């Protein structure tokens, strides 16, 4: 597939944004900054970026407890996300949501979600809305391997199938739901198999390769925009850190396994590819990384300097 140079550069920049945003979080946790429960996405960047690079601003996504990557890939501003994690009034959610609930409706990011499987019906409903309003938008639900054992997943796929909804179901199969291996908790090895039961296409893709993810999603988006209905896309990927927080000690997985996946690092390998394919020089890539670094630094400064919410602000926003 021919992906334009500017798109490739944009994809690289987004992936670096996600990585550096979260590396900053790790640094801040180390410094004792209380950021709440941050479920880190590092290692899985190719999924969010490969998928969302197919979307326009008015397309929708619904995310999970591990949502930073989806937010950034869909265009949520980093400085407002950082301010949210800093519990500030200027945050995306005015300090009311925190990491697990970041939302920005102006860019079609309908919300992260603290309930496993809770977001899938919401994405399905945004697809229903698209269909009823007869627009050309699409919607995507992100969710983990663990979430595919939730009834909401099955019910949503069935509804999206019978109504031919323009929804992409993106499973981030990182091999574990918390401490429980997918190989134990799932009745099939490949989540994509579950599509069969609902009469929709199911594809497994290398979730460490942003181009692979992009291309498969591209086909699914075309299908959806043409009224042909939903697709289930399983991206095999890996989270480098613990279920949440900045630790890398896992009693349920081996160091070797982590190292093996890190060899396939989505950003490192995409970088090499961009150089080899002559898309960008080492210098230009470095320039992007520096630019993102500065952006993150600025975001932290913005968050630090922003005001705390007043206690009484808690009573606002229950209804609008």
């Amino acid at each position, binding site marked *: 597939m021919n992906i334009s140079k500017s798109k490739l550069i944009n994809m690289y920049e987004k992936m670096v944004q996600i990585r550096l945003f979260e590396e900053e979080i790790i640094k801040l946790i180390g410094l004792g900054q*209380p950021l*709440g*429960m941050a479920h880190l996405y590092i290692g899985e960047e190719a999924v969010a970026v490969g998928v969302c690079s197919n979307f326009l601003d008015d397309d929708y996504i619904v995310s999970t407890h591990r949502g930073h990557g989806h937010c950034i890939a869909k265009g949520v501003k980093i400085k407002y996300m950082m301010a*949210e994690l800093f*519990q*500030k009034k200027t945050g995306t*959610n005015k*300090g*009311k*949501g*925190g990491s*697990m*609930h970041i939302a920005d409706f102006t860019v079609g990011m309908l919300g992260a*979600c*603290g*309930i*496993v*499987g*809770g977001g899938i019906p919401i994405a399905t409903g945004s697809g229903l809305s698209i269909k009823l309003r007869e627009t050309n938008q699409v919607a995507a639900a992100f969710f983990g391997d*663990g*979430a595919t*054992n*939730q*009834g909401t997943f099955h019910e949503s796929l069935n509804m999206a199938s019978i109504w031919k909804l323009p929804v992409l179901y993106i499973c981030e199969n990182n091999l574990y*739901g*918390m*401490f*429980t291996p997918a190989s*134990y*908790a*799932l009745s099939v090895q490949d989540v994509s198999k579950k599509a069969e039961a609902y009469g929709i296409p199911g594809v497994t893709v290398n979730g460490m390769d942003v181009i692979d993810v992009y291309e498969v999603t591209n086909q699914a988006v075309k299908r959806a925009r043409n009224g042909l209905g939903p697709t289930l896309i399983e991206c095999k990927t890996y989270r480098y850190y613990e279920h949440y927080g900045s630790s890398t000690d896992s*009693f*349920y997985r081996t160091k070797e396994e982590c190292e093996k996946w890190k060899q396939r690092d989505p950003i490192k390998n995409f970088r090499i590819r961009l150089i080899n394919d002559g898309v960008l020089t080492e210098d230009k890539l470095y320039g992007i990384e520096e630019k993102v670094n500065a952006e993150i630094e600025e975001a932290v400064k913005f968050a630090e300097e922003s005001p*705390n*919410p*007043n*206690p*009484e*602000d*808690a*009573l606002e926003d*229950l209804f609008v």
Partner: protein
Amino acid sequence: MQREITCNQAINEAIGEEMKRNSTVFLMGEDLYGNPTFGGKPLDLSLKKRVLNTPISEPSFVGAGLGAALTGMRPIVKLMFVDFSLMALDQIINQIAKITYMSGGNAKVPLVIWAPEGASGRSAAQHSQSLEGIFVGTPGLKVITPSTPYDVKGLFKTAIRDNNPVIFLTHKRLNYLKGHVPEEEYLIPFGQGTIKRKGDDVTIVSWLYTLNKSLVAAEQLKNEGISVEVIDLRTLVPLDSKLILDSVKKTGRLVVAEEEAKRGSVASEIAAFVAEEGFQYLKAPIKRVASKNVPIPFAKTMEDFVLPQVGDIVKAVKDII
């Protein structure tokens, strides 16, 4: 020296002991193997078959608990947090709570659903809830709310031996609280509150984590010459209504303190009950201290404001003295 263990260890001991005592007792829930210990000791391997890790499928593994209970097993279903029980409310409210009654008393449901609840600091709206009102308001469920390791262990063992569905609520902030738990076996019957502190001027009724705040408040008030009686209800269904009424009869004043959102809370139910049955004893209006009527916000400034604090309890007492 008295042996001290945490609330978590107390539950683990209770489960381990009951599993050994009765081969139909088993435990299931998500990610149990994160902590496969009973009483701080490694899991006795002979029990391993009866500790089941579940997929993330709350409606079905909670419902499976009912199916197993109806057919000769005594399941303990662990929900990671009470917030996730909301996914399984059909099973809990339509099925589990009602089947004994609907069957004319022919169904026996020896099922414990154990769920930690409450705000533990910046976990935001979907990981901080206190939901006892939903269960207390559903006829057919026993609802247990202990605050000390001693009570946790004795009540958990009673829950496992009960032939009815029991919602066993613990508070996340109490998981690592230490307290005396004897080596010898004991059980604590349901429906018996305890007086944690004797006093004459006002009664505070509380449970779970807010009980601790109530005790701190009582100590502060003592220094100001106000004598507070603090009751730990320990179980909400059945409710030790006599203990509450007797105390109010003595003090003439009542504050109910707990962590749910105030509207529709169990505090409201207890206040209504005392207004109905003990109005003649009251020298002042009843006060409820609970969370404000909003979801739990993320930022600490707002979270602290929404949750009931020691200062709120102190103020409520002073308002009616």
